[in-house]
């Protein structure tokens, strides 16, 4: 009987530890529903330069309460709504023919222990990542949010600042207007 009791204890302990192991889950970006946007400021006159890029690809992997992932997008898709400005941005400063892609790698975002894919809502979670742009890498940090969308999809949004000079990008100057070094970047993606 005692032997049976110990076997029962082992089985109960075993079932509890098996229940704690969550298989990794990879979510892939839906390119059509993903975009990168940025806000830069030109001075004087506080000119607001808003741009968007598309064809974002990437994925995030959730292992227990850790998230890793990476996103890429082709810089040639960037547009600010004014053709001349786009040409200068892509040809003169970003040099997209030489450095066509930008990549953001998310490194080990710690999610609350109560988080699960069934209860996926997250707001203002701090994250650190590595941005690769213009053939240079630099650490970026910002905030990350996640919402459950329709049809089993998840919508994420990562917001962070970056400085152009950290990527050896020359500060854009045009017609007496210079762009402030720090720009705000937002990556939005639908994942499934």
């Amino acid at each position, binding site marked *: 009987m005692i032997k049976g009791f110990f076997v029962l204890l082992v089985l109960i302990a075993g079932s509890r530890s098996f229940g704690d192991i969550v298989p990794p889950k990879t979510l892939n970006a839906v390119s059509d529903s993903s975009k990168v946007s940025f806000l830069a*400021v030109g*001075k*004087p*006159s*506080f*000119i*607001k*330069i*808003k741009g968007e890029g598309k064809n974002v690809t990437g994925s995030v992997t959730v292992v227990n309460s850790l998230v890793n992932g990476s996103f890429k997008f082709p810089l040639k898709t960037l547009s600010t*709504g*004014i*053709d*001349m*400005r786009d040409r200068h941005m892509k040809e003169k400063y970003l040099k997209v023919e030489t450095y066509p892609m930008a990549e953001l790698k998310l490194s080990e975002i710690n999610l609350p222990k109560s988080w699960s894919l069934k209860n996926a809502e997250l707001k203002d979670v701090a994250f650190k990542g590595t941005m690769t742009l213009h053939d240079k890498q630099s650490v970026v940090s910002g905030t990350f949010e996640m919402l459950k969308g329709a049809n089993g999809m998840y919508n994420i949004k990562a917001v962070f600042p970056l400085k152009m000079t950290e990527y050896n990008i020359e500060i854009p100057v*045009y*017609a*007496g*207007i210079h762009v402030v070094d720090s720009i705000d970047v937002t990556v939005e993606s639908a994942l499934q």
Partner: protein
Amino acid sequence: MAYAFPEMVRYNYINCTTCHVSVTGGGVLTPYGRSLSAEALSSFGSENEAQILHGLFGTPGFSEALNLGGDVRDLQMYLENSSIQQAQWIFMQAEIEGALHIGKLTLDSTFGRMVNSDQSNYLGSHQYYALYNFTEEIGGRIGRFYAAYGLNMADHTLYVRQDLGFDQNQETQNLEASYIGDRINAYLSGIMSRGDIQVTQQETAVAGQFSYAILDRYKVGTSIWSGSSQQMKRTMMGLHGILGFTKQLYFLSEIDFQWMTTLATSSENRGFYDFQRFGYEFLKGAHAYLQFQFEQSNLQDSTSIKRAIGGGLLFYPRPHFEFSTEYDKSYVQATGSNLTDIIWLLLHYYL
């Protein structure tokens, strides 16, 4: 000189100083404003073409230190009602403007054809000022220019411009402090005199304007004015908005109240002035708009009512050129029940 085009908020350009040297907008263009006249304003055009003299000499090396501009405007007008038919060609304006930047100081002046009250012409300047930028946001200006009040619109015949003292060549001698920030624009002006009118009519005033940009596409503001002359005292208050709903659709609005006391009779007069315009850029450089104006300069006297409803087209085919036409059905109570059809065509060349 180019005219103010506040509708550029549609492109997130919420500060007039993006395109113009003047902190209140209008007038000679900055180098960036010149490039936008090709890229954003006109149907066709190149960056070089937007430069002075159509880029004949490329981009002048002095273009950031010395901004040059000029302006020629002609108007063909036709009006008709049951009493009159009148066609008139008006040579409105021919002048040049220059703004010289020396460190934080800017010296600006126009020079060209001026018109006396008897319609005789002379050469002179209706706008000149010294502007000092203490910081990127804070500036001080002294000279002759329109004090900041309401929308700085090119059409000086609008009720909210013409009938409130902001008609063509009615710029005043002012001392102004300005703050041009990320979202906030604020102005405080001391209006001293206009030298070209009789002393009894010269008004001294204090005026203020505050505006706030929302979502980088909407700008709303309020203005206040308190002034007096030997003949009257008045206070004006107004609200205005420049709303860029989309890159194509925009709305301009201004309403003003005026309280005026005629000193000789001690009679008090309250007036209301209204301007609304919906515009749509249906092709790059081509706009259609609907417009409504209302004025009752004495709320106790219905004969002081004026109304105009109409619409127009604006066309900027290439940098330096503007063509505009407008039709209005106008009603002026004081002249009886006549509805007047007014059509005008404006040809505008800016250097």
